[in-house]
């Protein structure tokens, strides 16, 4: 490394102050502006490979269900048909409302 010349110092200081004054460029994803992306934090970066490996496992299960069992979408599940025909009648029925739906409460 050579000596830092006055010119290099001024360049560096100038660039730094421009960044500080204008703010670091915010990251944009689609329409939303995200100020702090977990996947780019020091901890998030360490977890990416683990997340990807487990995602791959989950999509592998999706292909097994579709290729071997021929079941892609929820209404095709034979047990779902049985559950509704023997018990709950149809989605949003009275039975569904009683057992499968709920309400929420503000917590102040």
């Amino acid at each position: 490394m050579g000596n830092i010349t006055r010119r290099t110092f001024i360049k560096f200081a100038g660039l730094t102050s421009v960044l500080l004054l204008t703010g670091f460029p915010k990251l944009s994803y689609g329409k939303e502006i995200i100020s702090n992306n977990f996947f780019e934090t020091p901890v998030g970066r360490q977890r990416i490979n683990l997340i990807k490996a487990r995602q791959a496992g989950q999509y592998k299960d999706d292909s097994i269900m579709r290729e071997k069992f021929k079941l892609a979408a929820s209404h095709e599940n034979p047990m779902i048909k049985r559950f509704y025909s023997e018990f709950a009648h149809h989605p949003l029925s009275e039975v569904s409302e009683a057992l499968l739906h709920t309400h929420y409460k503000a917590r102040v």
Partner: protein
Amino acid sequence: MVKKIKTFKGDGGVSVDMGTYRSGELKGIIRIVEESCVGCDTCKTVCPSGAIRGAIGEKHTIDLEKCIFCGQCLVNCPFESISQMSFVAHVIAKLKDKKTKVVAIIAPAVRVAIAEEFGAEPGTLTVGRLWAALKKAGFEIYDNNFAADQTILEEGTELLARVAAHSGLKELPIELWSKKIVLNVEEFKHHPLPQFTSCCPAWVRYVEIFYPKLIPNLSSCKSPQQMAGATSKTYGAKNIWKVKPESVYTVGVMPCTAKIFEASRPEFNSAGKYLKINGMKDVDAVLTTRDLATVFRKLNIDPMKLSEERFPKDFMQYTGGATIFGVSGGVMEAAVRFAFHVLSGQSPQAMSPQWDFEDVRGFTKPVVSATIPVPLKEEYQKIFNTKHLEIKVCVVNGIGPDGAHLKPVIENVLAGKSPYHFIEVMNCPGGCINGGGQPCHPIELGLWEKFLYALAGSKKK
């Protein structure tokens, strides 16, 4: 090698409504272990709700009024200094009682992580082996993936009802399994769009504490775990297992620590209400993925030594749409597959890539959005007066550090400027697969953490 996480035995909930807790709810499911906390601040950088207090280098504490029990601090702590409430002892006692039918409700993300506790690579798919191990331990199985399919039927239909109501319709015909029903959708005028998913219990508590104005936007559907609990004790007990509802003990097996809280919510006694039995909870206990591994080890069961072949019957049957609930974008994709079928009248050919709605998959992006053009079947063309309906969806992949992923999306909704019909929110980045109840791997220490660790050590001397 996975890390060992400290646990403490769970007990009863709070006895009266107090602060952000209601009577019966469990408080303090996640706790910082004071002796080993070095104050490195890692937990604070991942906490979605700003619940962690304490300056750098000082012992940190959790503000329980703000904590949503997601456990992100726990899985990311470099010093294993955060502990979890556990119900392992309760469940093992029930397994020994032959008069009790102990039902394991296994979440989608458990099957891609539990193998790590037994030495396998991350992401190893464990379905047949997991079922066989649970049977060996004495559990009956209600795969939560079946409940995910129930959720899609209910939540997908709810979405169509909201869209119809806000298009000015009074009723909506829906054809399922060649049977036609006509839904009265007038009351859905009071359920605004966008509809938010309600599967993630940490997100639900987050809304209730920080954005109560958005409660009408939340889907009224229970999470799959709670649907499974209520169905087990009613339809399951009577029609499938032919036992008394009181003898059924339901155990959620979850990648999640917030599910422990969810099961304790006072309104989740709907099976008891339906059957007129007092004091019956829909879900009796919740184990995390780590806890289930502990149960297996205590009973000397190694699932990896069993056969992976699967023979699904009854509540073990599930679809591809259900299993992807474990990843960010999965609930959205499953709902879109279902809505696409209902609106277009087309059947998903299981293999067709047309039914891979990859645009909604979160992977490792903090927010994704997509517009899905759905060709309408003739009947709907007349009703909606158009040939195509465009469904606009958004997926928030983790609430993000102090809400960073979520806030821009929510602010648009509050300002009435959100273009979406349906928004999925999962608290944990990546979805449930990266949940607070999953096996923990070492977090590498930076220089700064090493320094604080050394400093904490020298203070002890």
